[in-house]
């Protein structure tokens, strides 16, 4: 089923979704767009390239409280956080970011290792994927084609959206999406010309070319293993790296976290907070020993985790080529160039 709405009237659709549950959508902030929980329908802004922060926050918040406890009291009195989730709509996700959820599912929602918080949020959420605007020039940092993802891939979305001039075409992709689309009466029916436009647009997405290099997952995994000890290579690659955490925090597939107990006046909270392998204290052990004191070791870890260890363990590259790490790096370190250099090293 394909339906449509004029972009001017998007706030009507937004209002309906807000009535049905929680809506997360892009809003304009000082330095760019970000996903936020919507309380004012007028705030939703689809005129964006991609958000600064990836949408992983929707399922894996920067800080997640697990347990509240009191010092000196028994464990039975500790209160575990219960999620009371309303149906959630994650609106306007770019195809590369949609793909990242599938990769993150490996860690949080696969057989044997289930994170109940991630799973509950995933199940409560309907994803509205949104094709890149093919009439807007590409950002030079993007390279999702390298990972086999295209600008208008509907795969992984429940409902997929495509912009047609001043209209938004919406198509149900999964049964969950189809059902929701059927319920949204503020949307208009479409002509067969619109339906053709939608299908054409998805095809045209393949012609919207990002940077591309032929990366065979097994080959790059092997290559990174062989150059692990090439200190010269890694020192060169990391000589500019400031070792801040921007790249990992904006990344849709970085999932490392720290468990923190914060106690004050006898009351405490145990929570999970994002961590970053680029931080010096990430590998600091209780003994005081730190196996990764050098910047090159940390950058090597980041690249190797995504393009080697992850392939060895789970069979897929842990990167979707969204370009965020490159775009937001204060010193323009580019993971794509490092992978290219590694292949030649």
């Amino acid at each position, binding site marked *: 089923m394909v339906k449509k709405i004029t972009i001017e009237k998007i706030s009507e659709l937004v209002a309906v979704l807000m009535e049905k549950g929680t809506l997360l959508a892009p809003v304009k902030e000082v330095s760019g767009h970000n996903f936020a929980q919507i309380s004012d329908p007028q705030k939703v802004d689809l005129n964006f390239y991609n958000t600064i922060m990836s949408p992983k926050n929707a399922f894996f918040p920067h800080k997640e409280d697990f347990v509240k406890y009191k010092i000196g009291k028994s464990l039975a009195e500790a209160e575990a956080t219960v999620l009371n989730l309303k149906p959630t709509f994650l609106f306007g996700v770019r195809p590369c970011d949609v793909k990242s959820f599938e990769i993150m599912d490996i860690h949080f929602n696969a057989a044997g290792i289930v994170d109940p918080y991630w799973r509950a949020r995933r199940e409560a959420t309907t994803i509205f994927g949104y094709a890149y605007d093919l009439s807007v020039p590409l950002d030079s940092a993007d390279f999702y084609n390298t990972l086999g993802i295209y600008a208008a891939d509907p795969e992984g979305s429940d409902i997929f959206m495509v912009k047609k001039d001043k209209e938004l075409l919406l198509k149900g992709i999964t049964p969950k999406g189809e059902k929701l689309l059927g319920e949204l009466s503020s949307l208009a029916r479409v002509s067969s010309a619109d339906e053709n436009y939608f299908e054409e647009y998805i095809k045209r997405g393949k012609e919207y070319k990002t940077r591309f290099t032929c990366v065979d997952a097994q080959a790059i995994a092997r290559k990174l293993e062989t150059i692990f000890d090439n200190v010269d290579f890694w020192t060169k690659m990391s000589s*500019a790296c400031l070792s801040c955490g921007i790249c990992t925090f904006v990344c849709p597939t970085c999932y490392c976290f720290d468990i923190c107990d914060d106690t004050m006046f006898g009351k405490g909270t145990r929570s999970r907070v994002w961590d970053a392998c680029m931080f010096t204290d990430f590998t600091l052990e209780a003994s005081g020993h730190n196996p990764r004191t050098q*910047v090159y070791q940390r950058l090597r870890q980041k690249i190797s985790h995504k393009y080697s260890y992850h392939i060895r363990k789970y069979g897929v590259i842990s990167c979707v080529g969204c370009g965020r790490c490159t775009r937001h790096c204060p010193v323009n370190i580019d993971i794509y160039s490092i992978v290219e250099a590694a292949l030649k090293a």
Partner: protein
Amino acid sequence: MTDFKKIEENLKKESKRLLEAGDVTVVLAYGKGFDESHPMPYAAKAVADVENIVFNEYCNYNMARYLVRYPQGTKIAIAVKAADSRAVIVLIQEEKVKRENLVILGIPVQGMKNPKTGEIIDSKTTCGMYNPVLYDLLLGEEVHGSKSASPYEVLMEYEKMDKDARWEFWKKELDKCIRCYACRKACPMCYCDPCFIDQSKPKWADKAPQSPGNMMYHLTRFQHLAGRCIDCGECSRACPVGIPLYLFHKKVAKECEEMFKQQAGMSIEDKPVLVDFRVEDSDKILE
């Protein structure tokens, strides 16, 4: 206007000469990035590396940031723009590097740009100076005649706010912080190892990107930079969420200048104001 190509040529020429003669083991300059508008900080360690050196209007990086990565005694050549040279001066004052181990390649420049916004970087977010304060070699013509606005002019609006309004302003701004620590990592004056915020015994603030911890981190960092910040603006440029950190640093720099009649990083003979004591020093802070 600045002749970027000429500076790039000179930078390459001098780097090559210094490396060839063995006067230095590393040249800290700017190198090719993934495209022309995205150059990177670059460390040339061999003559062959020199061809990768570039200089254009996007080479904003303060290379003084990288000085402390090399062991004391390493002979280093460093490319500096105006504010960067002031950072080198503070590092010399604080005995992090020795003057005799440095060959300072000064770059007078006007019209640097922020690649994210395309805006010219001027005295709004930096000290706005064009010419390096300290150098051994100058790689271009000094900029004269076009006087830049006072680096404190941007504070006019800020200073109209009363104490409560400022508190609200910073609470709102610092709430945006995601604790990626890019600001401290881009800062040439932030070299503590470990930084107080990374310590766990005692733990000074929680790790979560929320109000109390964010306040603790930023306010402490602001304090640590009092009288030391040379206003290169790299912290604000690095910030992915656009917190105007420069406002606080400029405000403190202005107060310091008024109280102690000294700007940070203007002479290697100076001592940083907060480690120096002079009988005539202002008592304003105690009033």
